[in-house]
């Protein structure tokens, strides 16, 4: 039975929105602590809010816990409390073992000093003795891959090199409990892979708490996840489930925002034919625009034709990610003499996208002219029902096509196109 390393019981923390007031509360808090009075104060003072409320969890050796949530959800605050930087306002934290942190990599670096000197300073800040650093020095330099720059002042480093050096030092601290806060933001792909590899490698020996907006890396590293929303613990479960829940929530939220502002959709084209509406359905998509992976997705759209088309037209249905990068496109057969309204039905069996939110786009093209492009015509989220992403941890990929069936009906004329044929 692995030992419990971190126990958090009913942690709460309040912050103040107003700077002047916050400073004054600070003075008062210091005074009352000096008098030995400050205790579980669970009342909010004016202009205060709960940055964290009633957070409880446990972490054992060999476990990795991912903290997920939007900006301002309280993830970093929670890490700060666990790290002993700030005190909780209610509750209790017990940390057993040496605590290490990959937070603010390279904090304490002096820009004027060389990388070599800064390794010693930063190592000392992280609790390594000179002897320990001497022993690990070469390892650190190799890990950071900075041998040529080690005697150059750190101010001449790029931000990626800066973080690499910081990470290399922090990675050689051998903690029992490791706190990691968004370290993948800077650094190239190779560095990211190194970070994730390193974390995966040490997880069996430590208890890891990992904060990142890179959900895939959380799924890769962590078995357990906690979803935070405005300081509240919304879900504690398997990390893939927590991520799915997070996706669903952010989808609903973005949907609400979109229906309020209607700025998200982009429409262009010459407009002789226009899509009117679009809907999706999936065999077990009970939840409207939330689709389970592996299910069959059916997209239906109607279009209106304002003018007889002389050239051949082609209808396309595609799926794009939130950054409007096209992931896969299906095209219909070519239509000659399109002159009537019609509809299009596109079937994607075995939808196997990663659990994320996606956009659906529709387009109609002439041989060379864009007639209509609607992007995103609709947004939907995929939930990873089988936890496939975790099990196979498939890499990035570019799809040539997706097995699908696309049917366009214009008047009585209906044609189906199948891939693969």
């Amino acid at each position, binding site marked *: 039975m692995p*030992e419990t390393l971190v126990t958090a019981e009913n942690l709460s923390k309040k*912050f*103040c929105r107003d700077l002047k007031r*916050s*400073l004054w509360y*600070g*003075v008062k*808090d*210091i005074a*009352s*602590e*000096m*008098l*030995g*009075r*400050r*205790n*579980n*104060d669970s009342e909010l003072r004016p202009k205060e809010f709960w940055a964290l409320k009633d957070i409880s969890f446990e972490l054992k050796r060999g476990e990795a816990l991912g903290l997920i949530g939007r900006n301002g959800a309280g993830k970093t605050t929670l890490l*700060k*409390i666990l*790290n*002993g*930087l*700030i*005190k*909780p*306002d*209610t*509750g*209790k*934290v*017990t*940390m*057993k*073992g*040496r*605590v290490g*942190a990959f*937070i*603010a990599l390279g*904090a*304490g670096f*002096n820009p*004027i*000093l060389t990388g070599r*000197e800064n390794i*010693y*300073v930063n190592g*000392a*800040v*992280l*609790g390594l*003795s*000179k002897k320990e650093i001497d022993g690990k020095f070469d390892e650190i330099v190799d890990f950071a891959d900075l041998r040529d720059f080690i005697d150059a002042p750190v101010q001449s480093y790029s931000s990626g090199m800066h973080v690499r050096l910081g990470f290399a030092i922090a990675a050689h601290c051998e903690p*029992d409990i490791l706190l990691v806060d968004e370290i993948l933001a800077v650094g190239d792909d190779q560095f990211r892979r190194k970070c994730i590899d390193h974390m995966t490698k040490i997880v069996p020996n430590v208890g890891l708490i990992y904060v990142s907006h890179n959900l895939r890396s959380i799924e890769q590293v962590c078995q357990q996840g906690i979803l935070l929303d405005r300081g509240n613990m919304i879900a504690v479960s398997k990390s893939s489930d927590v991520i799915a829940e997070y996706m669903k929530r952010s989808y609903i939220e973005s949907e609400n925002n979109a229906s309020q502002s209607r700025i998200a959709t982009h429409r262009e084209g010459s407009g002789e034919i226009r899509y009117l509406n679009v809907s999706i359905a999936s065999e077990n998509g009970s939840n409207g625009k939330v689709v389970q992976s592996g299910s069959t997705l059916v997209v239906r759209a109607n279009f209106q034709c304002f003018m007889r088309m002389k050239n051949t037209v082609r209808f396309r249905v595609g799926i794009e990610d939130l950054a409007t990068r096209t992931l896969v496109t299906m095209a219909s057969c070519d239509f000659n003499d399109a002159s009537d309204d019609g509809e299009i039905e596109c079937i994607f069996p075995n939808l196997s996208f990663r659990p994320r939110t996606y956009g659906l786009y529709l387009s109609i093209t002439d041989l060379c002219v864009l007639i209509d492009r609607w992007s995103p015509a609709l947004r939907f989220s995929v939930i990873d029902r089988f936890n496939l992403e975790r099990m196979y941890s498939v890499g990035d990929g570019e799809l040539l096509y997706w097995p699908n069936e696309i049917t366009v009906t214009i008047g009585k004329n209906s044609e189906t196109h199948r891939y693969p044929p």
Partner: protein
Amino acid sequence: MSENVPELIYTPESQLRHPRQLFRNMWMDLKNSRGLAWRLTVRDISAQYRQTALGYFWAVFPPLVTSLTFILLNSSKIIDVRDIEIPYPAFVFFGTVFWQLFVDALNAPLKVVTNAKMMLAKINFPKEALILSGIGQILFSFGIKLIMLALVLLFFKIPIKWTVLFVPIPILGLVALGTMLGVLLVPIGVLYKDIQSSLLIATSALIFFTPVVYPPPEAGMLSTVMKFNPVTPMIMTTRQVAYQGIPHNLVPFCLTFFATLVLIFIGWIMYRIAMPILVERMSA
């Protein structure tokens, strides 16, 4: 192995509720912070002087300017200082070197804590290291000043008494007094910028209420103020053991020294207790 694994518990409770644990932690952190304090001192000193053309000369520059000003004022009889055993330039330089030590010690805690904000907000390390590294830095620059002072005393052929062997004691007193006041100001000084600005003004005025550039007058308001100024006995004693011989009255010095030690301990507790609250406000 799991026997000596440290266990840390964080609760909202005031640490003063468990004084024994508090004192043990203070002692442990002080012990553990020496290595880090040394590193930070070396870091800051080398960074400070590396990007300058004049280098270590900057350590003696401030007292030199102050001294020259007063030497000029005195030689043109704008101020008229008498009853000093040694030539006025030596007297002034002696005073300003030690005065600067006090001022540096006073400013150091707030300065090092402010400069380390980023580190404080992100990394947990023994906070004592910051204060210690501040002391390390001022002692280093004081060492340079001391060499200059020795040259000045040699130049004026000032007869040094054997009691100079005791001079480290009042030096320690000056550093302790400055650090004590500085540490007491840290909690409020980090929250409100007013403190740092007032320190600058206060120290430039306080020099005239301390026997730095002239000896204490026999009577009058200034004499009374000087008598109650805690820096006075420290500077006076330094002068006495250096070139006047055995001090006749050590009571004010001993009282100030003792009070400083008590207050430095209280300041230390306050510094520790305030730190999480300060970190919260500096990152919020």
